[in-house]
C-alpha cells in the first residue's frame, strides 16, 4: 500500500512536472537566445488552449488532432510577435522590453475576456479520456499523454538545438552574439526562430493541458508563475535545466501536498528555489 501510494504520487508528480517543464522551456529558450523575459508567455498558453477548445467545440476535432496545427500556428504567432513588437524594443532600455511583453500580457488577457467572457470551458471527452490501471496504480490517460508529449517535445527541441545547423546557429547567438554575427549568422532570424520555437512548445503544452484542465482568460497566470520559478531554478536559458527543474517541482509539490499539508504544498519548492538563488545563483544547470 505505502509503496504503491509512493509510486502513485511519484507518477502524478512526474506528469505535472513534464507540463511545467514544457511551459518553462519556451521561456528559457527566449531568454537564452534573445535575452528577454517574455511576460506574456502564459497568455500564449491561454491562446493555444482556447484554439484547442474552439476546434473541439466548433469542429468536433480532438485535441490530439489539433495539436500539430496549434503548434504550427503558435510558431507563426511567436514569429509575428517578434517581428511586429519585440524587434522594435530589442535595442531599447530593459524596462521598455519588460513593458512590451507585460503590455502584451495585459492586452491578451483582456482581449480573451472580451471575446470569450470569464467563463470556464473544458473539453469533456477526447480520445485520451479515461484511466489506465497498472497494478494498484492509477494512470489518468490525459496526464500520461501530456507527460509523454512534453518529454517528446523536449527531446525533439534538444535534438534540434544540439544536432542541426539552425540549432547550432541558435546556440551560437545565445552564447556570443557578436561572434555569431561575424560568422555570418543572421541573429535577427535566430531571434525570430527562438520566439517561434518557444511559442510552438507552449502551443503543444496548451493542447495537451486542454485534455484535463479548463481554459479561462487567466489560465496562463496559474501556470506561468510556476514556469518562471522553474526557469530560475533550472538556470536561465538552459533547456535541460528547465526540464530537470520542472520535474523536481512537479514531484516535490505533490509529495509535500500529501505528506505536509495542502496549504504548504509549494513551500518546499520555493525553499529549494531560495536555496538555489542564494548558493548557486546561476541555477541548477545554468551557465556561469
Amino acid at each position, binding site marked *: 500500500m505505502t509503496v504503491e*501510494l509512493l509510486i*502513485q*504520487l511519484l507518477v*502524478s*508528480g512526474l506528469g*505535472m512536472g513534464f507540463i511545467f517543464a514544457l511551459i518553462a522551456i519556451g521561456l528559457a529558450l527566449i531568454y537564452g537566445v534573445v535575452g528577454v523575459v517574455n511576460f506574456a508567455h502564459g497568455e500564449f498558453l491561454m491562446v493555444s488552449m482556447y484554439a484547442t477548445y474552439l476546434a473541439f467545440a466548433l469542429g468536433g476535432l480532438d485535441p490530439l488532432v489539433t495539436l500539430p496545427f496549434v503548434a504550427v500556428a503558435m510558431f507563426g504567432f511567436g514569429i509575428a510577435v517578434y517581428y511586429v513588437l519585440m524587434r522594435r524594443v530589442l535595442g531599447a532600455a530593459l524596462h521598455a522590453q519588460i513593458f512590451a511583453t507585460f503590455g502584451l500580457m495585459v492586452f491578451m488577457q*483582456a482581449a480573451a*475576456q472580451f471575446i470569450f*467572457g*470569464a*467563463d*470556464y*470551458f*473544458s473539453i*469533456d*471527452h477526447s480520445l485520451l479520456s479515461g*484511466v489506465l490501471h497498472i497494478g494498484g496504480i*492509477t494512470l*489518468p490517460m490525459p*496526464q500520461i499523454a501530456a507527460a509523454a508529449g512534453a518529454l517528446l517535445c523536449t527531446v525533439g527541441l534538444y535534438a534540434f538545438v544540439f544536432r542541426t545547423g539552425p540549432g547550432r546557429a541558435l546556440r551560437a547567438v545565445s552564447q556570443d552574439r557578436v561572434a555569431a554575427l561575424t560568422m555570418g549568422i543572421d541573429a535577427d532570424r535566430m531571434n525570430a526562430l527562438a520566439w517561434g520555437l518557444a511559442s510552438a512548445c507552449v502551443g503543444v503544452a496548451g493542447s495537451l493541458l486542454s485534455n*484535463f*484542465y*479548463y481554459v*479561462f*482568460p*487567466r489560465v496562463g*497566470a*496559474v*501556470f506561468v508563475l*510556476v514556469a518562471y520559478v522553474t526557469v530560475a531554478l533550472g538556470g536561465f536559458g538552459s533547456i535541460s535545466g528547465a526540464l530537470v527543474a520542472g520535474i523536481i517541482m512537479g514531484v516535490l*509539490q*505533490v*509529495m*509535500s*501536498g*500529501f505528506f505536509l*499539508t*495542502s*496549504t504548504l*504544498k*509549494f513551500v518546499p519548492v520555493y525553499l529549494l528555489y531560495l536555496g538555489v538563488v542564494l548558493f548557486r545563483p546561476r541555477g541548477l544547470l545554468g551557465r556561469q
Partner: protein
Amino acid sequence: MEQHLGVRMVAGDLCRKLPLLLGVALIIAGATSVSPARGQDVVRIGALYPLSGAVAKSGEDTLNAIRLAVDVINGKYPDSNLPFAKPGGLPGLKGAKIELITADHQGSPEIGAAEAERMITQQKVVALIGTFHSSVALTVSQVAERNEIPFMTGESEATPLTERGYKWLFRTTPTSLNQARDFFVFLRDLNTKRDQKVKTIAIVHENTLWGQEFGTAMESYFKEFPEFTMVANIGYQQGTTDVTSEVQRLISLKPDVVVHASYDAEAILFAKTYKQYNFAPQGILAIGAAFGSTAFRNALKDDANFFLVREHWSLDLAGTNPLIAQVAKMYQDKYNKAMDGTPARSFQGMMTLVDAINRAGSTEPAAIQKALQQTDLPPASLIMPWEGVKFDAKGQNTKTRGIFVQTINGKPATVWPFEMAQSKLNWPKPAM
C-alpha cells in the same frame, strides 16, 4: 465731460436692465434651491464586485442579478408582481429611480476599500452593496462604518463580518456558521430517516477567508453531533494547478462523506480528479454554488450529476413561490444564462436594501440605517425560501433557511429538507 457722459450712460443702462438682471438672479437662485429635491429623482447605490481576475465570472453573474433588480425597481418589468415593479421607482421618494454605480475590486481587499471610499466621497452614493469575497467585504465594511454609509451584503458569508458589531453593515445571507450546521442536520436526517450509515467526514476548503471560516465552522459542530468524526480538514491554495496530492490523501483516508468549500475553478478540478482516481465516497457535499453552478455543469456534462450543494435557492422551488419563476425567467432572458443561488441571493440583498431606502423616505444614510434595522419582510415577498428578512443587532438576517440541491440529469433538484423535496435524493452517490 466725455468721462462723465460715459458713467451716466452705464448707470442709465444698469437702471434699465435691473429688472432683467434681478429676474436672472432669481432664476439661478431658484434653480440651486430646487436641485436637492431633484437629487432625489435618482438614488445612487454603489456595487462592488470582482469583474476581472480569477473569479470574474462569478462576479459578473452576481452583479447581473443586481442590475436586474435595479431594472425591476425602475419599472422595466411593469407586469411583474415583484415589489416596486408596478409603480416603477420608489413611492416613498416620489418615484425616484435607482442609479447603480459599479466598480471592479479585482478580489483585492485594498482595491475594494479604495473603490468604496471613492464611491462615497466622489460619487455620493447613499449605500453600498457587494462584494462576493468576504475578505473584500471586511475592508469595505470598515470604510462604510467610518463614513457612516449603509453597506448591504447579499452573498459574503464569512461569520466574523457580522461578529464585529458594526452598525452600518447588514447581511441577508446566512453566515458560514449557520450554513455549516445544515450539513450536520442533513447527515443526521439521512442516518435516522433514510437508514444510511454516515460516520466519517472529510472537509476540503479553499484557503481565503470564506473557505477557512467554513472549515472552522464545520469543526465546531462535531461536539454537537457526536455520531460523526472528522478524518481530515484539508485547506488548499486557491488557483492551484493540480490537486492530486489532496485527492490521494482523501483516498487513503476513505471518508464516508466529503464536504467542500470551493470556487468554480477548483470545483471543476476536484471533480475531474475524483473521477480519474475513482474516488467514490457515499456523498460529496458542498457549500456555495460551485459544485452545482452553470459553469460546473457546462464543464463536466454528465459527470456533474449527483453532487449535493447546500443552497439557499433553486429554480424548482418555483412551484412554492411564483416570484422565483418570474425572476429566473427575467435573468435567463436578459443574460442568456440560467440563474443560480448566488445571483438569487444578491438580488434579494438589493431588494432588501431598496425596500429600506423606500421606507426611510429619504436618502439620508442614518434614515436608511434605521429603516434597515426595522426591516421585517414576509416570506411571500422574497425569492428566497427563507422565513423572512429581519436583522439582529449585529446586522445579521435571523430568518434564513438552507436547502440541499442535487444535480439530477443536469438539472438542480431540491432534495432536502425531505418535506420540501421536489425530487428523490440519490444516495449513495452513483459512480462518475
